[in-house]
């Protein structure tokens, strides 16, 4: 990274990853009001805000556990940006014309943008990968699920009643097919050119 100091709010990320109920509760107490307020002012309601907050927290959790996440900015700024973005995407999906988003970014700083962009890209990719996975044939989905929950390839082959060599080959072909689906999707090209 750019050598910026890790912010003390990193402890919030760590608490989230460790399933620390106290930290998670404090996220709601300290950061939910602003999000609720924003969404209510932008054609939403409290329950939609709840969904947005929960989705964003799960995304942050996934990024932190899969790719790692280091905050160099206050959690407040980062979290709020992500919630705004999620809400904006929700509104776009329902194609509400005249989506007025009040542009008011609190404690905006260069580093908030950086982490925010990282997580946004991660989120988009994750959704795309999940969608494309569902487009694979059932056999591939089954096989891949087994391959990645059971680290022993032989035991996977046994479970599916095929040879080890076959299982191995099929695994690479299935991921290959998924790769093709992803690369040829419009969404992927959009993500990669952002």
């Amino acid at each position, binding site marked *: 990274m750019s050598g910026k100091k890790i912010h003390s709010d990193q402890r919030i990320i760590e608490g989230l990853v460790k399933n620390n109920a106290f930290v*998670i509760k404090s996220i709601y107490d*300290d950061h*939910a009001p602003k999000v609720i307020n924003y969404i209510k002012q932008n054609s939403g309601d409290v329950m939609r805000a709840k969904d947005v907050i929960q989705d964003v927290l799960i995304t942050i959790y996934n990024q932190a556990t899969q790719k790692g996440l280091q905050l160099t900015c206050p959690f407040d700024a980062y979290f709020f940006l992500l919630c705004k973005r999620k809400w904006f995407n929700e509104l776009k999906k329902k194609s509400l014309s005249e989506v007025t988003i009040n542009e008011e970014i609190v404690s905006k700083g260069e580093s908030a943008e950086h982490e925010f962009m990282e997580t946004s890209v991660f989120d988009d990719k994750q959704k795309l990968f999940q969608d494309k996975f569902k487009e694979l044939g059932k056999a591939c989905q089954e096989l891949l699920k087994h391959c*990645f929950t059971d*680290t022993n390839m032989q035991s996977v082959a046994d479970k599916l009643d095929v040879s080890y060599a076959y299982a191995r080959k099929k695994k690479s072909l299935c*991921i*290959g097919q998924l790769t093709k689906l992803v690369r040829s999707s419009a969404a992927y090209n959009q993500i990669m050119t952002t």
Partner: protein
Amino acid sequence: MEPQDYTLFEDYLANELDAEVKAEFENRLAEDSDFKTEFETYKELSEHLQHEFSNAEARAEVTSTIEKLGDDYFAETNSDKTSKGFNRSYLAIAASIVIIIGFFGYNWFSVPTYSDYNNYGDINLTVRGTQTEALKNAETAFNEGDYAEANVYFNKILKANPDNVDVQFYKGIALIETEKYGEADRILSALANGNSVYKYEATWYRALSQLKQKDTDGAIAILETIPQEADVYEKAQQLLKKLQ
């Protein structure tokens, strides 16, 4: 891309290519950009699938905590009762009149007490995969308000794992609940002087402990030590205003 290319990818990632084939592969990566992009996407997908499936249980636990605490939080926000730990910026918006009147009515005329603040929701101490009996029992006892029993289990755990800050913290709270204030203060002070996740929460609870013992001055003194960068700063300030 040919099927054998994907087999190559898989073998390369599993480090099962012999030196010559591996060198050839890396050459091709350097020279064929389409091949490289395909490989990198393949690799990224492998990592995604790895995380998606092998991490499923842990993710389910965290998701469940997020949802449950969300349900609790939003139930409070939606209720007609005055909400505790009121956030000032929310007040600034012309929201429900009932809540505003309720807030002013409550805070104008009543003195804050410990029981206004000791709402901590369910705790979840279990660490991924290493659920021990004592941890589970401690959790259950605490969540049912059986603080004396919770402490029996907390002590057991701390005997084997004296540095477990999560358990130290909840033990501190359980001690306040069972009126063992001296011991509570010792544990919470140690946490407050340390650098764990609980540093400022521990200070907050030390203050609440004073409040429970009806020592308003003591509570004020402690609350004033909470710095601006602490997450609990805002609520500490709000409580200070009510106490002073």
